[in-house]
């Protein structure tokens, strides 16, 4: 009978715990703050709470005696949080790089069904037709703000290990700089139309050999001079820019690949889309640059997030067992002490709270250590992958405060699970037996 009762009790605890963890995962920060404040008030103001504080103090005071075992909790949780935060920071960095590349004030036009610039073709006779469509903003001179562009993949040698990598050479029209105000020249100057001159993104300059200002590089059997470096803080940083007519001449291309256009007003995109659909000569797709670039990051970001959470969960399960092991041992080691407390009048609740608080404290320490390591090592760490234009996109890991906060939530969740069952065992310890045991 006792066994069944205890078993049912444990089952109840597991169910409540599962529900609690699920709620914990979705709680916003202010709800958690409210819980923390509530707990602090209970600890400070009620009799039971003060007893719990006293019991915790005893537990914490004995921590230095069992540093080895306690370190298992701290390091285990630091590992979970560090790996989780690093993987999610990679996803977030990639997403941020691509989503900031576009904005909802400009649109990109591609051949119908082509999905990316590399696959697209827009013939020269279509360019003026596109420029005349409704919804496109006009510059001071009254001409439409459009930039017909080419995007070529070129082989570049990486600085890291000297192997070939695909870099993106973008041929842009004279309006390109105005269409992308985030692109600023930070060294040298812009290229001159008609000249074989390149302005390189700061990311590309860092990754590939020979892109310093003043150098000459060979592309398509022609020598090009690097005349400047630009910074944009987004995917363009990985690109090499040149005059589109010069690129077209060099590669003997008779058509363009995409047109980027500034949208007029709020409903500019809707107007442009409608006008495009109404013109039978233009079998083209139009999309806001914001949507076009965010869509490119979707797959990889999704994959990295799932990967991070799966790896994090498996590691967290391992860390929970580690924490359980340590805390069971701690409770067993202090069985006499706990029995004595129970004998002199401590009730079950303060004992349970004390053990859980102690575990959560270690877990918090682990979470902070793991988050700090991830932040120090990975914040701003540059990586590159193949983007949807078949060329390298460089991005930086982004360890944001939200990610660190999430990491702490994971840490405290692991601490809660790891502390709860040993705490229950401590509270259920048969007092007389524990006192008698040597």
């Amino acid at each position: 009978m006792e066994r069944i009762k205890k078993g049912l009790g444990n089952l109840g605890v597991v169910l409540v715990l599962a529900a609690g963890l699920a709620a914990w995962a979705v709680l916003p920060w202010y709800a958690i703050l409210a819980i923390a404040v509530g707990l602090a008030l209970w600890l400070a103001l009620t009799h039971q709470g003060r007893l719990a504080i006293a019991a915790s103090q005893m537990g914490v005071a004995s921590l230095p005696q069992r540093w080895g075992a306690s370190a298992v909790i701290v390091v285990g949780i630091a590992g979970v949080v560090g790996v989780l935060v690093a993987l999610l920071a990679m996803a977030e960095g990639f997403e941020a790089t691509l989503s900031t590349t576009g904005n909802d004030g400009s649109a990109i036009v591609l051949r119908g069904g082509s999905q990316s610039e590399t696959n697209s073709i827009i013939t020269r006779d279509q360019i003026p037709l596109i420029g005349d469509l409704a919804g496109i903003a006009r510059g001071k001179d009254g001409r439409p703000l459009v930039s017909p562009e080419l995007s070529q993949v070129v082989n570049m040698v990486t600085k890291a290990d000297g192997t070939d990598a695909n870099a993106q050479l973008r041929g842009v029209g004279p309006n390109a700089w105005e269409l992308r105000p985030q692109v600023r020249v930070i060294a040298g100057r812009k290229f001159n139309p008609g000249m074989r001159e390149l302005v390189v993104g700061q990311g590309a300059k860092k990754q590939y050999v020979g892109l310093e200002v003043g150098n000459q590089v060979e592309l398509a059997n022609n020598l090009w001079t690097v005349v400047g470096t630009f910074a944009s803080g987004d995917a363009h940083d990985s690109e090499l820019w040149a005059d589109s007519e010069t690129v077209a001449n060099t590669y003997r291309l008779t058509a363009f690949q995409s047109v980027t256009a500034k949208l007029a007003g709020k409903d500019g995109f809707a107007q442009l889309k409608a006008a495009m659909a109404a013109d039978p000569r233009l079998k083209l797709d139009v999309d806001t640059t914001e949507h076009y670039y965010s869509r490119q990051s979707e797959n990889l970001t999704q994959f990295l997030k799932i990967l991070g959470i799966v790896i994090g969960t498996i590691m967290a399960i391992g860390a929970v067992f580690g924490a359980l092991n340590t805390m069971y041992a701690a409770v067993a080691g202090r069985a006499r002490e706990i029995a004595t407390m129970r004998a002199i009048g401590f009730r079950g609740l303060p004992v349970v709270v004390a053990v859980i608080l102690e575990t959560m404290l270690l877990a918090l320490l682990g979470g902070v250590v793991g988050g700090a390591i991830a932040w120090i090592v990975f914040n701003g760490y540059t990586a590159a992958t193949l983007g949807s234009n078949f060329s390298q996109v460089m991005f930086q890991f982004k360890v944001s405060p939200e990610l660190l906060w999430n990491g702490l939530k994971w840490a405290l969740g692991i601490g809660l699970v790891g502390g709860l069952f040993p705490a229950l065992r401590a509270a259920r310890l048969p007092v007389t037996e524990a006192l008698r045991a040597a």
Partner: protein
Amino acid sequence: MKYLHLIWAALFRSKTRTLLTLLSVVAAFLLFGMLDSVRVAFNSSANVEGYDRLITTSKLSITQALPYSLLTQIESTPGVANVSYATWFGGIYKDPKNFFANYAVGPGFMELYPEYVLPAEQLQAFNSERIGTVVGESLAKQFGWKIGDDIPLQATIWPTKGSNDWHFKLVGIFKLADKKREGEERQMMFHWKYFDEANDFIKGQVHWYVLDLDDASKSTQVAKAIDAMSENSDRETKTQTEQAFNQAFFKQIGDIGLIVTAVMSAVFFTLLLLAGNTMAQAVRERIPELAVLKTIGFSNGSVLWLVLMESIVLIVIGGAIGLAIATLLMPAVSAASGGAIQLGTVPPATWLLGLALMVGLGIVVGAQPALRAMRLNIVDALAGR
């Protein structure tokens, strides 16, 4: 071996502790099994060994096409045995998320890839059907394609008669004997001739040539001879071994090996600490028992081995369970993702590396407690000092 029951009894002395440690080890090796399989799969498609093929692409970049007329020149290069060619199609089946490689191939392409096992009558059917196509088995399974099916592809680059709708007839399904290269079954090939005639944009363009040699050791000379033919033209070529070509490509996707190593270092470091702590505890509790063993005649060496074996057995059992779960879990993950994530089974290479890691970890974890047990002074230990 005769002490196995002793080791077993020692492990189950504290059931909770052993079970919890075991479960941590299981979790760690489950993760190891899955991550390392991904790494092995990734590397093996980059490292195609035993087939000495060369790939000729444009020197400018792989997206630049080469002229079809190069074929006769390459064929007549001394040392070249067979040549075929391919042009990237990049079509979409229903939804862009269903990504797989599809390209148009010249005659003799399938014969250059003997590891793509295609029944002889299907190969014949492919060679005689103008709009015929062959696909890998994984791909056919994922979309439920059968021989004779019409397969529509949405072109992203090459329209046909002003429309993006292309249709192919499935005539063959190939598979790879080597399980590690199962990822290469996610490909679809059809005739270059049909593609060349039916597309609106390009005629006589090839993205890459693939060739094999009379003598594999001459690959450097042959590659140089081929590249020399187009030197200083506007269509310069770059010829390299298939391995070098694949490696350069996969390297650009990202350094999978580095990520796997970093994650696993964090996991194993934690495991080391955790299991080490368990073993230290286990030995500390058993000091009087170990002293008794020594009193009744166990040598210092046997006591050392007992403790060391205990830690190795603990980690090997947990690790084997973890890898076994990974083996069962990975096909389930692939199925649940609807083909978006392709994981094969745990390859033998991962099992071997895993076993080596288990034994290594067991030794490192058990070393310190085992030495302590070996150096026990019987009198002190029995007296509880």
